[in-house]
């Protein structure tokens, strides 16, 4: 594959060029003995626990951003979704939709990062597909990912189990992915040192799995950020959630960027954080377990309380505000 080669329509036709793409780009970077069989699907070994399936589409723009790219994001995001379901991630499938003219060198870099991320998360990419759309009909590359995991015994993760008195734990500072991608889009006109927090939450999730039933539910606050995630939990639990904004771990450059853009870090996307609802008696130990697992700034940020499903936040000024459900992508504003 020469450096200046680009994706042609025929790369998606299933013929010789598709095979060359698989042999020269995909297999060397994340091949394994199941994927190498190149069947129409992957025959998987039996699981002791219940199987869990998740699926996600990745269209992030720009494709490369500080702290990651669309490839590592696809692996981490899918792995994290499985972890949030209380499952040990096992296998992934990745389907690419490539645009005619997409540089093969970029595809190779993305597949390198897929390989590293999959190895890091201890998962195998076992099946996949590649389609090519005409130039102008796509945005370079989209990735549709699916993941299968094995449910950990003794866990019953369901936001409906959250009840008044339960503690809300957050594994680290919010808004890093959202600001990193926004900064990458703006180029020199607006630069931040913020890098995406995109990573697999294996250690954090496993640290909490050990608490069994005391762990009510777990979620990764991706699109819509922490506030949207908390609203989903409140609605499912039919209860109010009260948090203290001062207790939410902060990353100063994220806050500074959000101030300048008139945006709120609590609504900015995260790709490497988790929110856990914990039984009150287990919360301190869970928070300590998160920290021991490497989430150095993990904190209890609030609790589920009696009341109608809303999320209330005590503001740093000492007042209180409602964290409403997001009505659309956060937009930078001047007034």
């Amino acid at each position, binding site marked *: 594959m020469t450096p200046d080669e680009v994706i042609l329509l025929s790369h998606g036709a299933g013929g010789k060029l598709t095979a060359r793409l698989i042999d020269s780009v995909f297999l060397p970077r994340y091949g394994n003995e199941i994927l190498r069989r190149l069947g129409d699907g992957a025959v998987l070994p039996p699981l002791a626990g219940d199987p869990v399936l998740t699926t996600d589409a990745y269209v992030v723009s720009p494709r490369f951003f500080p702290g990651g790219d669309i490839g590592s994001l696809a692996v981490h995001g899918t792995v994290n979704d499985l972890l949030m379901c209380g499952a040990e991630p096992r296998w992934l499938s990745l389907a690419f939709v490539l645009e005619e003219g997409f540089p093969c060198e970029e595809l190779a870099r993305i597949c390198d990062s897929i390989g590293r991320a999959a190895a890091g998360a201890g998962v195998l990419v076992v099946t996949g597909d590649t389609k090519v759309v005409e130039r102008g009909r796509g945005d370079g590359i989209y990735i549709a990912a699916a993941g299968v995991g094995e449910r950990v015994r003794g866990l019953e993760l369901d936001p409906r189990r959250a009840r008044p008195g339960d503690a809300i734990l957050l594994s680290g500072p919010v808004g890093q992915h959202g600001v990193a991608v926004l900064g990458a889009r703006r180029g020199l006109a*607006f630069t931040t040192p913020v890098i995406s927090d995109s990573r697999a939450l294996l250690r954090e999730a496993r640290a909490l799995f050990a608490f069994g039933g005391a762990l009510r539910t777990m979620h990764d606050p991706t699109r819509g950020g922490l506030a949207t995630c908390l609203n989903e939990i409140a609605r499912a639990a039919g209860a109010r959630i009260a948090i203290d904004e001062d207790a939410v771990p902060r990353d100063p450059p994220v806050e500074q960027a959000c101030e300048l853009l008139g945006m709120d870090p609590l609504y900015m996307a995260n790709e490497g954080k988790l929110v856990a609802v914990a039984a009150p008696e287990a919360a301190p130990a869970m928070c300590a377990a998160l920290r021991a697992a490497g989430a150095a700034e993990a904190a209890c940020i609030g609790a589920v309380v009696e009341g109608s499903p809303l999320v209330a936040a005590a503001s740093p000024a000492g007042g209180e505000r409602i964290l409403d459900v997001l009505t659309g992508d956060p937009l930078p504003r*001047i007034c």
Partner: protein
Amino acid sequence: MCVAFPMRVTAVTGDRGRVALGDVEQEVSLELLDNVAVGDYVIVHAGFALQTLDRGEAAETLAMLGALTRPEEEPAP
């Protein structure tokens, strides 16, 4: 009706400048002001510096706020 922030001037080239709020940096136009220097703080709105922040007034306002936090009998240090 106007989100604007005090930002530290880190570079000046003609009527353009680079400014920072903490670790976040931005390019701005300085054409609405005169003789802005590196190290100044300027009020930035929509990519333009609208005014140079008056450090003396900022300190005075903070001093007045500080005075409010101390009980009357003890004069401000």
